[in-house]
């Protein structure tokens, strides 16, 4: 069922080549220096990573969610943080491609597809995270412009991005009063908070996005007034799969490093790999990652087909894959002993990076809520 076709194998090979050459050798250094490698992102854009599942007429690669799951797993083996940022960028691109007019698509996507320009997704606010429908940023129609005011929290790429996809309230309280806007960098009134100090994801900036009387023309509105929440949630379905894939790639890399470490590290007269207790842990890691991979690919193909249960499957995949991947990465750290705790080995970075995947793009608790509600709905 999950055998890659020749074309997918070639895509994966190309991504592996890129990750091995451009990401992996620098991942630890970028993490330590908190360096956001925009030049390398441009090269990623050249490969086709800037608009993976956007249409080809605007520079997209025209691939599927199933292809993307493979691509992000491979990319994350090189650098989980950069892979995760590329996922967020793609979420923005997809929302413009899917919900924008032809004029909007042609205006915004080509430079995002090449990653000459970067995108940021602005939904969360200081007081509205999991309860996104409670967001308070406002957009008030004033002639042929909207006036935006509010603060967006935890925004990846903020300050470096050229395009901000902002969810703001144009109407009633709750999800139906939310509208999506494209706000370009440099718009007067748009500013950014300080770069947050974080546990992981250090190679991409995270800042507040502050909107003070930001004036954008009406044609920067994406979709209809009140349609923003649906756009935001649909974007997240795919984002969740990508984040799961990023976790899986990081954990798979950590597992392989651990096997190599246990084969060469000796204690009590032999290589550690001969200790059955440790071997069993490797077996459990491999088994759980393989189960995670199966669920991820199943959910991705379901989203490609547009199945009715795709939303629930994406939530299941996000919750399960990010959980077991974090556990596997943490086990990999333990099995590396003291070396796992050293930055140079890269393992502790993966653990720190993967930890946030259990929180963002919908916490794993919210994922359970989505899945649980779907079960109850089905039963009625």
């Amino acid at each position: 069922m999950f055998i890659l076709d020749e074309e997918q194998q070639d895509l994966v090979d190309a991504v592996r080549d890129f990750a091995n050459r451009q990401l992996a050798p620098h991942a630890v250094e970028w993490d330590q220096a908190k360096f956001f490698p925009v030049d390398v992102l441009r090269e990623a854009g050249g490969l086709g990573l800037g608009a993976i599942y956007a249409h080809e007429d605007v520079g997209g690669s025209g691939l599927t969610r199933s292809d993307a799951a493979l691509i992000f797993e491979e990319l994350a083996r090189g650098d989980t943080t950069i892979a995760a940022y590329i996922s967020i960028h793609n979420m923005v691109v997809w929302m413009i491609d899917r919900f924008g007019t032809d004029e909007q698509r042609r205006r915004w996507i080509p430079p995002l597809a090449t990653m000459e320009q970067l995108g940021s997704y602005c939904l969360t606010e200081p007081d509205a995270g999991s309860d996104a429908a409670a967001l308070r940023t406002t957009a008030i129609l004033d002639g042929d412009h909207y006036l935006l005011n509010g603060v967006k929290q935890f925004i990846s790429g903020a300050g470096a991005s050229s395009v901000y996809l902002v969810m703001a309230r144009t109407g009633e309280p709750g999800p139906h009063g939310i509208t999506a806007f494209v706000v370009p960098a440099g718009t007067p009134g748009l500013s950014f908070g300080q770069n947050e100090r974080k546990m992981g994801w250090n190679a991409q900036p995270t800042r507040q996005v502050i909107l003070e009387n930001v004036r954008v023309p009406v044609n920067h509105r994406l979709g209809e007034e009140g349609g923003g929440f649906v756009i935001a949630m649909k974007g997240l379905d795919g984002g969740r799969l990508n984040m799961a894939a990023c976790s899986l790639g990081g954990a798979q890399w950590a597992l392989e490093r651990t096997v190599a470490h246990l084969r060469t590290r000796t204690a009590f007269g032999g290589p550690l790999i001969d200790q059955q207790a440790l071997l069993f842990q490797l077996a459990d890691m491999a088994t759980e990652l393989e189960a995670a991979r199966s669920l991820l690919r199943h959910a991705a193909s379901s989203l490609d087909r547009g199945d009715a249960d795709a939303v629930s499957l994406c939530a299941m995949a996000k919750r399960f894959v990010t959980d077991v991947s974090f556990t596997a990465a943490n086990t990999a750290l333990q099995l590396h002993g003291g070396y796992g705790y050293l930055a140079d080995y890269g393992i502790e970075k993966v653990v720190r990076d993967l930890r946030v995947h259990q929180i963002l793009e919908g916490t794993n608790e919210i994922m359970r809520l989505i899945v649980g509600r779907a079960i109850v709905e089905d039963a009625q």
Partner: protein
Amino acid sequence: MKIVVLVKQVPDTWGARRLNLDTGWLDRGGSEAVIDEIDERALEAALAYQDSNDAEVVALTMGPDSAKDMLRKSLAMGADSAVHILDSRLAGADLAWTARVIAAALTKLGYDLVIAGNESTDGRGGVLPALVAEHLGVPLASYLDSVAITADSIAGERSTELGTMSVRAPLPAVISVTERTAEARFPNFKGILRAKKKPVTVWSLDDLGADAAASPVRSVVLATSERPARSAGTQIVDDGTAGVELAEFLAARHLI
């Protein structure tokens, strides 16, 4: 302009590479098979010209069935079509025969310019482009560190022990490029998707005529032996005098 790039499938230099000690041939099962990096640069030289000029780029290889994967990568990078010389009789063909076969294929295919890597990372012969040029009766400019292609000529620089030679030749011609030429582009997703729709022609020896089919002389490997394991070298730990020690080490062997 029709540019034919000679590409070869070789064992990945990142892995261990082995010979089959019975036949003296390359053990192809022993490591991952990839397009030779130097051939990627040869292809890059052709594609760079094609980027801003009207040109058709054909990737040509002689090799086993598995070489088709490497041809697909050449197509993904931007070649317009590919030719695969595939014939089990060619297994273990030496340089002389290989050159005859490739020259026959080039004659059948037609070309204005043939670009090859200067030497493969497995065979390391470094003479195939010269042999091919000789068969074709066209000029050869080998081991070029830089390449300038025009509609009717080729020019470039090659390093010698004493300096640099600027060479030029009218087309048609054969050239080979070194690792100093531009690094190859990555195939992008669009290229990969397009590659499947591009034509790959497969020719057997019978398609290439009697001249190519039989080799009048044939070099045969008489014996091979495994390279002895490397003995431990001299380790210098820098306590402030490593420079002097290194200089003495080299001077003692008359290397400086």
